């Protein structure tokens, strides 16, 4: 069966294409990109995408799907629904489930549930260390065989440098990077927000930027030492970004990602203890936010990743210090990214690159382009649309977003995975 996406403008950073094209899909793959109006035969389904932009489906390197173990926060099915509603066709799931994804049986369960949900593609990441305890390595080889695409103890930091070095080297033998939640746990303590004027004002303990900077520096040094691939998750400080920039210039195989909240918000936004603004790493200062934006533009930051972290009301509707870390992000990431385009921080092409081909390159994922023969994972959005982000647009099981009520720009209209429409909004 053939599907035609007609009258759209196609932006494909992988091939540098930015032109009006009709996309012809057959058997889940892209058969051809034809000039608008060109005749094509045997089209069974015709999608009118007038005024819209079609791009490769977005890829999120950092998502917490919460299943198994925390199905009250999110299930793989609801998480995947949230993903496709936000234009994401592939998501990488973090290992801090319960049980932890430190054994292939958990990986297999995640993949089976994802298949059953049949929405976004799910690429599981497994733990670096058993039980996220930071001590002994997981059976990385077997986990890799079962389909994990990377290793991470996200939520925790591997504090022991010797363990970290071995993890990098061992994972690299499968060509897979280790992703790090780079925060020195001793410096950070369990402080609930960024260290600075606002933490002082609120009487809250603060996480100094140095807790991130020092750990990024350590891991970059270990990556340089071993030649092994390193991926820094949710980079949030000016100092850490400078370290990555320097490392890249010296040829260290390091990549990094930034989350939309870190390029949109700052610690002051915590206001009077609003727990929807509590995450790890915490919202930082204005200089840090500017540094993240600059690094998105100049290529120091490779990808935008949401760190989608659903939490049920109970653990957010409480004292700030006791509230769980994290916010949902799949539903809002695209519009927030597009705000950077409207603000002139990054080009349209760069925005799409950050959401598609760049994350795929960092993790060898077989997506991120719309060239002939590629899998037809496609996101169609209206760059002119505006809307207010309300809870009825949330497909996640949890509603912990600081962006509720915010006026948004650009909107995902349709998401296709393997040529099949899995989400459409009118």
């Amino acid at each position: 069966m053939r599907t035609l996406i007609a009258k759209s403008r196609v932006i494909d950073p992988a091939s540098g294409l930015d032109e009006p094209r009709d996309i012809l899909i057959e058997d889940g793959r892209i058969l051809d990109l034809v000039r608008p109006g060109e005749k094509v035969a045997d089209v069974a389904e015709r999608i009118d995408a007038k005024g819209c932009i079609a791009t490769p489906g977005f890829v999120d390197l950092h998502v917490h799907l919460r299943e198994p173990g925390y199905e009250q926060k999110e299930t793989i099915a609801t998480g995947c629904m949230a993903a496709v509603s936000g234009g994401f066709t592939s998501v990488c799931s973090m290992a801090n489930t319960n049980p932890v994804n430190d054994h292939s049986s958990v990986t297999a369960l995640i993949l089976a549930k994802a298949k059953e949900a049949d929405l976004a593609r799910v690429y599981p990441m497994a733990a670096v260390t058993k039980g996220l305890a930071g001590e002994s390595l997981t059976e990385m080889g077997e986990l890799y065989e079962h389909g994990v695409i990377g290793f991470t103890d996200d939520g925790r930091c591997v504090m022991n440098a010797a363990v970290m070095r071995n993890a990098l080297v061992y994972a690299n033998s499968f060509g897979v990077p280790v992703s790090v939640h780079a925060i020195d746990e001793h410096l950070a303590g369990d402080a609930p927000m960024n260290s600075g004027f606002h933490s002082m004002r609120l009487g809250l303990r603060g996480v100094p930027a140095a807790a991130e900077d020092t750990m990024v520096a350590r891991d970059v040094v270990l990556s340089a030492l071993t030649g092994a691939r390193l991926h820094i998750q949710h980079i949030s400080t000016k100092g850490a970004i400078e370290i990555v920039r320097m490392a890249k210039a010296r040829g260290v195989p390091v990549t990094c990602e930034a989350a939309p909240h870190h390029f949109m918000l700052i610690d002051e936004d915590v206001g009077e203890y609003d727990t929807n603004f509590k995450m790890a790493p915490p919202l930082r200062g204005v200089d840090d936010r500017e540094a993240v934006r600059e690094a998105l533009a100049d290529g120091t930051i490779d990808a935008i990743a949401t760190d989608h972290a659903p939490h049920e009301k109970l653990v957010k509707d409480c004292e700030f210090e006791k509230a769980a870390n994290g916010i949902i992000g799949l539903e809002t990431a695209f519009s927030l990214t597009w705000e950077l385009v409207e603000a002139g921080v990054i080009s349209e092409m760069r925005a799409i690159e950050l959401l598609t081909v760049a994350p795929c390159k960092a993790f060898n994922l077989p997506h991120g382009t719309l060239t002939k023969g590629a899998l037809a994972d496609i996101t169609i959005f209206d760059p002119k649309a505006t809307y207010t982000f309300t809870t009825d647009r949330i497909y996640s099981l949890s509603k912990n977003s600081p962006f509720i009520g915010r006026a948004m720009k650009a909107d995902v209209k349709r998401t296709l995975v393997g040529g099949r429409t899995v989400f459409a909004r009118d």
Partner: protein
Amino acid sequence: MMWTRKDVLGLADLSVDEIQTILDTAESFKEINRREIKKVPTLRGKTVVNLFYEPSTRTRTSFEIAAKRLSADTVNFTPSSSSVGKGETLLDTVRNIEAMHPAVIVVRHPNAGTPHLLSRRVGISVVNAGDGAHEHPSQALLDMLMIREAKGRIEGLTISIVGDISHSRVARSNILGLKKMGANVRICGPATMIPPAIDRLGVEVFHDMDAAIHDADVIMMLRIQLERQTGALFPSNREYARFYGLNEARLERAKPDAIIMHPGPMNRGVEISSDVADSTRSKILDQVSNGVAVRMAILYLLAGRKAGDEDADREVEGH
């Protein structure tokens, strides 16, 4: 002025007028505290709930006496904060209390911002009796009443606050309040106890105590939390006493009529020497007396006005 505020959460929100109103009201209540029969019927039939998630006999007793002298009924709840998250949440507890229709809830909690969370969720008045390292408004107000009494004014005075500023809600509330009232505020302590960016509150930061109290009108010593030693904020009590303890010799640096304050309880021989604590310049016990008057003022302003007042109406509608 007309009092319209529902809650007293901190000195950050209170205006100069409101601070003055509380202090003036407290002054008028001091007279009651000197009477033979220390009781007026102002809050008769109203209930004040003390919800203390942290033990503090002093503050709780002070609020309790204040409420009783205004003829309110008082109830003390002392839930364990460790049970939160396992079973009943803080909001559950407070909704339960609200259902019993008290007029005011006085809350002490180890987590900063808890009274703010409650004030958004309940219709009854909330008084912050200390939230984590954030604020302790009734303490700062009683300190300000003390200073006003001893010095006749606050504006233009040089007030040195010495100790663990980072973890002190008393320091934070005093800094905010005293700056609003026009004082020059100096803070002093080991660098490990000075929080980031505190200079943005308009205070002068010192690490040398002699310099910090030079020509000061008021010296406010803070209690050192000996249990915080695990954080390695200072090497030993002995060293702390040597560099940041107030003793007779050091006191020479301040103005001859400088007064000494301490929120209590004191660690004698650590942050303050016994001779200073017991000297005539020490206002430590007067502070305690003023505490009752200030807390009476707060309870009165929040719950004691005649029917027809905006707040009294809201309180009724809340149920």
